[in-house]
């Protein structure tokens, strides 16, 4: 592709989440911050994809037509998003997979900056098992079964359970209940009604089931340890009041902030990737009642470290 290096102010970064979801909300502020801190030409946040790959592609294409030349995308369909990245790269546009890496072994974006989904689920399951005292019956609540990210989460939970050598039994995964709050609440209530007396721990790797389970467990009065994922305010409040034992926070702020920075460097042709398609972990953090007030500092520090790593390691300028 080549071409002259231009200033960062010529770079327009578009952050495209998979759809409306609390997880992505920090991206908005992070994008704004990146714009002022690095003097970018502009950033935008567009969540109109509504969890549909075709619509996401449409949104991305429209943004290209409107002059955006760097894209941080949470691919709706991990199996298909590589095609989208290919398409963008053919027009010389800088791309990053943020928050979720393409499925399979290849990443056609310039880089992927994401929590390792499997690791996060693994950590969440480990935290639950620890809270359960290393033994008992664990239930796993999650989202769309046929999504490859869900498969990774299922694998992560299974790995943690396997490591207990049979001390913990895992009930069949309760999938496809993230569509809406009613479905989640109903599924959780039915689960507690039929198996509540046996279950000692619940790990939820999706948003709505986590919200539903927090209330349901508290109301049922059952001694069930609940671990959630992500740090939406509802869940943090639940950790503070003790109805949720822990949550695994990811680092969406760093994904958007550092991602925008790296994208700008790539788009302005100042730098290239040292290793194109690199997969970079943005870190995950176990949040319990003890560190609920302080974990954010930890996360900011991780973000700063990530920034440095990009400059020193991932980018070659």
């Amino acid at each position, binding site marked *: 592709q080549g071409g002259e290096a231009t200033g960062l102010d010529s770079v327009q970064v578009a952050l495209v989440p998979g759809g409306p979801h609390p997880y992505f909300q920090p991206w908005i502020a992070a994008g704004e911050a990146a714009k002022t801190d690095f003097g970018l030409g502009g950033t935008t946040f567009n969540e*109109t994809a509504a969890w549909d*790959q*075709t619509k996401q592609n*449409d949104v991305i294409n429209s943004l290209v037509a409107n002059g955006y030349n760097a894209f941080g995308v949470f691919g709706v369909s991990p*199996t298909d998003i590589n095609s989208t990245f290919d398409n963008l790269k053919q*027009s010389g546009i800088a791309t990053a997979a943020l928050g979720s890496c393409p499925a399979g072994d290849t990443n056609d974006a310039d880089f992927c900056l994401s929590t390792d989904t499997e690791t996060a689920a693994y950590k969440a399951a480990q935290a639950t098992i620890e809270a359960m005292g290393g033994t008992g019956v664990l239930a796993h609540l999650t989202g769309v*079964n046929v999504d490859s990210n869900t498969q990774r989460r299922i694998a992560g939970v299974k790995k943690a359970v396997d490591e207990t050598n049979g001390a913990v039994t895992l009930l069949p995964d309760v999938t496809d209940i993230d569509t809406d709050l009613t479905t989640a609440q109903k599924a959780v209530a039915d689960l507690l009604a039929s198996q509540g007396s046996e279950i000692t721990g619940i790990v939820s790797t999706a948003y709505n089931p986590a919200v539903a389970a927090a209330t349901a467990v508290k109301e049922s009065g059952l001694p069930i340890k609940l671990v959630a994922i992500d740090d939406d305010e509802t869940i943090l409040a639940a950790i503070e009041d003790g109805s949720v034992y822990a949550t695994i926070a990811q680092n969406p702020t760093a994904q958007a902030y550092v991602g925008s920075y790296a994208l700008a460097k790539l788009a302005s042709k100042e730098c290239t990737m040292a290793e194109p398609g690199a997969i970079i972990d943005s870190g995950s953090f176990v949040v319990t009642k003890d560190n609920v007030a302080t974990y954010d500092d930890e996360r900011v520090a991780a973000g700063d470290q990530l920034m440095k790593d990009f400059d020193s390691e991932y980018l070659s300028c």
Partner: protein
Amino acid sequence: MRSAIRAQLTTPRFLLFVIIVVLVAVIVALKPSFLNGAFVLAPLITSIAIFTVVGLAQMVVLSIGHMNIAVGNMAAFGAMISGISFDLFGLPLVAGIAAGLVGGGLIGALTGWIIARTGVNSFIVTLAMSFALLGLVPTVYSALSTGSAFVVKPAGFDALGRDSFADVCQFGYCGPAAIPVMVVPVIVVMVLVAVLYTKTRVGRELLLTGSSVKAAEFSGIPTSRRIVLAHTLSGVLAALAGILLATSIGSFTPSIGDEFMLQSFVGPILGGTLLAGGYVSVTGTLLGITLTLVIRKGLELFGVGIETLNVLLGVILLIALSADRVREIRLRKGRTPDASAPPPSDPARSADRSTEEVPA
């Protein structure tokens, strides 16, 4: 002849056409980037092509007065069969697509057969079928694929889904980048469906079955067979739409078709096809789909947020459709008769259908 032209000018189709032209003109005036071939027009036309096939899949069952709630799931099923053919059996492009179409056709035929056999309302049977497929498809994907997707692509797969005529070069000249290759098979399908309904006996028998099953039965039309046929066609077209969608997004996943159901009704009904059966319009379906997708694309280009997008989409749809009504009220000098004064069946809108059906 003059009156024939006049009649054409008062159809909902013509009105749709005018609305679309005006909309496009407005969008282009405000956002010249709408004319960007590779990133706006080509994707837009690709979507129109795919969703027109989806609309046709619904239209063929609407023609007999039925509905297919399972269009999306049939699309997913047909695409899955194609995916399996490519991924597990390594079939070439055409054979794999054919397998998918056959798969969709079989599911459609089964649905039609159940409806014809039991006499149960098509809404219920297709609803039940959608549930059954909703169960079946993901199960098969999890069993047969890694990561719940079939990713093996035979030669020509990407070309069908993503190439535009810019990639088709003859004697050193290449076509416009704004027109995707996919329009070719879609136009062929549209013409075939239009010919079926305007020119052939079977097509007319479908329409008459839709007009009144009883009268059709009493005229010696094999209504059961026509019902099975309509649903089979619907299955085939749905599968085709699913496969085309897969080629455009890049792989076969169980979520193919999730968005089809509502759109499949919108296109035909906007275009004048009757929910009650007996009248269809292929061009109308194309225009109906085009209208909604152009609105969407325009709003996207203005970068409106998801909340505004939905609100505006709905409002524009309502206004566009009411325009027809306003014209009609003016014709009737302001008198509004009661809802059911016109014929008892519920024409989607007071479509003027005194001219011979279906324009090809």
